[in-house]
């Protein structure tokens, strides 16, 4: 009973989803879109293989949301691990406001962390996908560190935040007063990938920061912006923040004015 069967092999054994009049035309159509066309039917219902594939994609998305972030070998000792004010995953989903504030224990931990006033404060949040962090972080961190070195910058040791929303960077920024923040967070999982990560960046975030002060590089995953390449994109942006002393829409306006 040890022979694990590959999912795709099982689907192949079910046979083709449909037998179109012009198979080559269907192939061509399917190349034009990622939509699930050519799914075939059993009466009015989808054929079993395509249905299982759809449910597998949804299952992965659901698991990504509910699973805590687990790293091989555990969290490195230099990481500072804190939580937001959300008590559990359910409260996290229901109360976006709580996910934007660090817990009392976390506040104490941050104030004792010695991470006050860094040039580049590095935050990592679970957000809505544990897989996003687990599958991308090991490639992003070294590439980001190397790319920042080119600009004579060094990132802080990472602060990992559980039950984190994007806005928690403002609360942390208010406390630790960094010049810039790089915040890697798991995106809401889609059916296409459950492991997509975003990098939110901001110059001097604080409790008065508005959405338009932030920039976001989204879609960081193996089939999107590869994590090994994301580091350089983020570092270039941080370098601009340091030179222009602003971020987001303000940075775009300044650059436009300079041209």
């Amino acid at each position, binding site marked *: 009973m040890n022979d694990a069967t590959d999912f795709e092999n099982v689907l192949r054994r079910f046979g083709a989803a449909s037998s179109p009049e012009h198979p080559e035309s269907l192939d061509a159509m399917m190349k034009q879109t990622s939509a699930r*066309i050519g799914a075939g039917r059993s009466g009015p*219902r989808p054929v079993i293989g395509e*249905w299982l594939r759809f449910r597998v994609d949804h299952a992965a998305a659901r698991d990504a949301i509910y699973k805590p972030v687990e790293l091989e070998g555990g969290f490195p000792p230099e990481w500072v691990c804190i939580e937001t004010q959300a008590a559990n995953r359910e409260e996290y989903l*229901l109360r976006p*406001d709580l996910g934007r504030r660090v817990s009392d224990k976390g506040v104490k931990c941050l104030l004792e962390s010695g991470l006050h006033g860094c040039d580049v404060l590095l935050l990592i949040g679970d957000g809505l996908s544990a897989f996003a962090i687990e599958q991308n972080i090991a490639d992003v961190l070294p590439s980001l560190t190397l790319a920042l070195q080119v600009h004579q910058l060094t990132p802080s040791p990472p602060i990992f935040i559980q039950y984190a929303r994007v806005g928690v960077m403002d609360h942390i920024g208010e406390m630790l007063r960094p010049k810039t923040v790089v915040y890697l967070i798991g995106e809401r999982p889609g*059916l296409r990938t459950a492991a997509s990560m975003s990098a939110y960046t901001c110059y001097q975030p604080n409790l008065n920061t508005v959405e338009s002060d932030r920039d976001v590089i989204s879609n960081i995953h193996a089939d999107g912006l590869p994590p090994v390449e994301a580091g350089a994109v983020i570092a270039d942006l941080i370098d601009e923040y340091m030179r222009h002393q602003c971020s987001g829409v303000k940075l775009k306006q300044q650059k436009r004015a300079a041209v």
Partner: protein
Amino acid sequence: MTKTIRIRNQSFQFSDLYDLMAKANEPKSGDRLAGFSAETELERMAAKTLLAETPLSELYENPAVPYERDEVSRVVYDSLDLDQYRTMQNWTVAELRGYLLSEPNDDGEIQRRALGLTPEMAAAAAKIMSNMDLLCAAKKIRIVSTCRTTLGRPGVLACRLQPNHPADRVEGIRASILEGLSYGAGDALIGVNPVDDRPASVARVMDAIYETAHETLNVPTQTCVLAHIATQMECMRGGAKADVLFQSIAGTQKGNESFGVDVAVLREGFEFMRDYEYSAGPNRMYFETGQGSELSAGAHEGIDQVTLEARCYGLARCFKPFMVNSVVGFIGPEYLYDAKQITRAGLEDHFMGKLMGLPMGLDVCYTNHSQSDQNDLENLAALLTAAGVNFFMGVPLGDDVMLNYQTTSYHDIASLRELFDLSATPEFTQWMQSQGLLDGNRLTRKAGDATCLLK
């Protein structure tokens, strides 16, 4: 205006009419997030009981947002049929519910009298109705709308084909359209949500789908690209073609501001379409709504999401739309937590919309972070079909690769028609028969094969 009631030796007090309205709601995470849901189940029942004996005149005198401060309230009151209202002003909300459930409505009396009901009254009725009440009352209210084709007739379950593409690639959009048509999806509308909202790109998609539907395949349906209303008008003034004009709307003036619209631009759109040569009419507008959008924009004015949703419908009815649908479940678990809440909201929205005289469809959907799945979606779709819903969305296997959520599939449309003995619109049914996709009302072997429609 404090209201108090004792139940089982507990006393419950409500500070005003809209405290009562909020607490009378079935549980919704959005009301909890806003901080005004009932604290206990008994408190919820206390609120429902007091609301049931509230006279309609009290709701008339107290719109959710004051007339002076909110143009949605002004549009509703300025267009209200006061003669009809006066025949019902002494009714309680309980009497309104009783009337809606007992009146056979063979001659459309409910629709006529409802012109004298404000959205707040429709919401109040929904709050004291069970899910089955909502199905029974809505089923009797048949709203027919006509543009190129006619929706809402008995025996018809229509579908908006939603062939979205993550990069607006017209070849990809066309592939999804052909497959959808081959299943019988797309008799209400072929409507694309664009990724790129810039006029040149919107016009390109508009032209592509109009040409596919009306020039290449001669499908009796409507087409539309769901960009901002001003962008669509700009494209159409520049020569791009569409049958209906779309906009998302909210139940407060501030909520509409967050969508970048106001009553003036909706009026402009309405008048533009009336004079636009390519839209057959007389119904030419398409609106989308959804519980929670006002709260998420910080524009809820202290009012619960069911009442605000009804106000969207009060606004929509002034523009005699061809289609209206709530996108129930898209907003996420902060507003509708799980399948139970999404189901309740879907039934409320369909009922309230029909009572407000709208050709209601539903985008029955969920996001991956809500406690819901495809089985839950199929359940709600079956319930709404039983209630006589005008249309659903149709997306390849229910997976929208551009909006990243799940909705009803082409397969679901075919299944629901088979289950409930319904058809596409007669014009569209004939077209399918002429393409060899339907034999009588049964799908042929060709159905589901997009390649038979390649020209």
